[in-house]
């Protein structure tokens, strides 16, 4: 059951989120193992973004437990999560449009700004090695970047914090296929650096190809879970996306 292979970095159970009277997430639970990529896929409106926002503390959780590296983080707010090494790249990217690429990256390291300038310059060089395009544009305003570059910057900015767990919300959203491929290549490569990743995606095939383990979220509930390579051919996944179920 679950991500048994490794010690869980993140373990959530019984997570519920409501908007007013409407419950958008019902009793969701999942585990992310050390160094794993775990994906949550599902059709639009299934509650994927809600789930990430709730874990991060952006949304109030009506119930549920959140355990990070064995520490209970139930009431934690966004800043606490960042301080513990959890970073979220939201669907909107949330870049600082009127600031340079470099300043965006420096702010990415805000939680470690006491570590000193040299350390940060070094981290930035590492990040630039992964995203050479950003180095070329380091003094350009983030608002002038193309869609693909923005997503790269959002990812790079999160990496500046040296996260232990990286949560990505729809990194492929609105991007052309070639760029999606680039982004997923980077996500796959990140695994080698030891960071654990929780990936929320609508682009199910791409997500399943890069992930170790997957959950399928449908109308606020975990409908299906399993190792990615098993789910990739599961007809139920296709159904939940294309609505073929009602036809039979």
């Amino acid at each position: 059951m679950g991500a048994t292979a490794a010690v869980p970095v993140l373990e959530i159970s019984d997570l519920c989120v409501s908007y007013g009277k409407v419950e958008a997430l019902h009793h969701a639970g999942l585990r992310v193992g050390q160094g794993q990529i775990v994906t949550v896929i599902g059709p639009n409106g299934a509650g994927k973004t809600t789930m990430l926002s709730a874990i991060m503390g952006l949304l109030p959780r009506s119930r549920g437990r959140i355990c990070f590296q064995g520490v209970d983080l139930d009431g934690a707010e966004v800043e606490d999560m960042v301080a513990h090494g959890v970073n979220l790249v939201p669907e909107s990217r949330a870049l600082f449009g009127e600031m340079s690429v470099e300043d965006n990256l420096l702010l990415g390291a805000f939680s470690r700004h006491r570590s000193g300038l040299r350390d940060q310059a070094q981290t930035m060089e590492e990040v630039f090695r992964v995203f050479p395009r950003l180095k070329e544009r380091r003094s350009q305003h983030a608002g002038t970047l193309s869609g693909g570059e923005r997503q790269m910057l959002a990812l790079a900015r999160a990496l500046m914090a040296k996260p232990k767990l990286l949560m990505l919300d729809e990194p492929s959203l609105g991007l052309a296929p070639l760029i999606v491929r680039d982004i997923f290549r980077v996500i796959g490569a990140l695994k080698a650096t030891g960071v654990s990743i929780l990936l929320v995606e609508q682009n199910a095939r791409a997500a399943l190809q890069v992930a170790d383990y997957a959950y399928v979220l449908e109308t606020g509930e975990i409908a299906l879970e399993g190792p990615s390579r098993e789910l990739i051919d599961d007809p139920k996944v296709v159904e939940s996306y294309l609505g073929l179920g009602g036809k039979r």
Partner: protein
Amino acid sequence: MSPRILLPVFVLSLLLAPQLVSEFHVTLLNYIGLYSIVAIGLVLLTGVGGLMSFGQAAFVGLGGYATAYLTTATSLPVWIASLGGSPWLGLLAGVVLTAAVALLLGLLTLRLSGHYLPLGTIAWSISLYFLFGNLEFLGGHTGISGIPALSMFGLPMKDARNFYYLIWVVVLLAAWLTINLLDSREGRAIRALKGGVVMAEAMGVDTARSKVVIFLIAALFGCVSGWLYAHLQRFVNPTPFSLNMSIEYLFMAVLGGAAHVWGAVLGAGVITVLKQWLQDWLPRLLGASGNFEMIVFGVLMIFVLQRARDGLWPILCRLVPQRAIARSVPVADVLPRKSLPEAGEVLLEARHVVKRFGGLVANNNMNLNVKAGEIMALIGPNGAGKSTMFNCVSGVDRATEGEVLFRGRPVTELDSREIAKLGMSRTFQHVRLLPTMTVLENAAIGAHLRGSRGVLPAMLHLERAEENRLLAEAARQVERVGLKSSMFEAAGSLALGQQRTLEIARALCADPCLLLLDEPAAGLRYMEKQALAELLRKLRGEGMGILLVEHDMDFVMGLADRVVVMEFGEKIAEGLPEGVQRNPAVIEAYLGGVD
């Protein structure tokens, strides 16, 4: 005590009060009344409309000074002087002057974001204060004295007890007019200003006009209060019309409960009595003289907004058992309907629509059309640009390039309000209801364009016949979408799926020939989806055209006549549902892939 008799008891005690209490307390009650009139205006403006003014005391001053000047001046032009310095002339002049200033200020600031009105009125307030204090003919800082007493029905109102009745009649009148206004077609438009501007515009409401209207009414209430004040005091000087007084008026409205007309009276009472009491006690306590009640008021305001943002009135209401109102839907004639176009007529046509946000292309060269009597579905993965397209054709947003035709007319440049008039009605992906209003009232906003009576008839409730027809129509549509049992519940208490259905009822109230639905089935249960599909089929049968954005493929496939699929802002497929579903490009778009 039953809540039903509270109002009569209140009025009765108002009637008796001057006979029972001392002269001093009558004077206090007079002031509470004068302040209440201003605060009631602020309830309309701030509590209901979400706008804020620091200029109310200045409007009071305009009313006061206008009559003070006209009734005392000795060197007036002959044609005015012949009116014999009548207070009524003073009132008229004050009203005209106030209306002109309020209109100017409103037109200048109300198109800008919300915080420019308060800042603009602060400046106006200070300017007027210094103007009063420095104009020779207004007596400078000493002011104008010797204002004649009012006389009504041949009875001069020289003492506080006589004046008391006049003031409180005006208070009750102001409250009655305001309550009437809020319970009307115009009132619903006003109540939509706070958090529902985009929706109201899409239903054909001219929100800019509504804002100016409430600013004007609030200013005029101030002016009338000032007129009364001048003739009560028989003397005016700039001090009571300063910015600080404007702020105190605001505090009265907020403390009482900014969204409740009676809260204004309560707030005016509490602040006035408290001020009296604090002005007695604080200087003794602190051993110095000065307006130390300011400290208490300031801290009180912070506390109220942190702990009880809706003010005292709702708290008091909770102490009284809730009245079980037997609310019913009025019986009325059916509203006339527009004739629907012939089946097959092209209703909506988008040609080469391009929408860019900065460098981002959200829609690229999109073409689509919707005919009368068909359901057309627009589908595609998240972020494909469907909602943007929706906003472009409905006038909520404007296309960067390309053309949109509605019933053969170019509408690309029109606002959503004007497009709504032509017979297009829509729902929103992120539900835009007014959560505290009832289901019926929310639906009735959709019928805004089917009524025509304005603000004045609404304040006097002379538009009841039309109002009943509108409500009856709204009730019919609510019933039609299956929400009859929740007719009088607050819209915010419905489940999300029901809220979406209510959006459809609201759109239907507009009597559209084209219905634009943004994800209507999201959050609905299976049975509810079936019922919704049935409703849409019926509307199609009547000849309505329907454009549907949807993610629920089951729902779309069983329902739509034609489907357009979008990805990356472009059309990737179009055709019959079955064909589209087997299209490899569509499957790719939905499931994605990296190979």
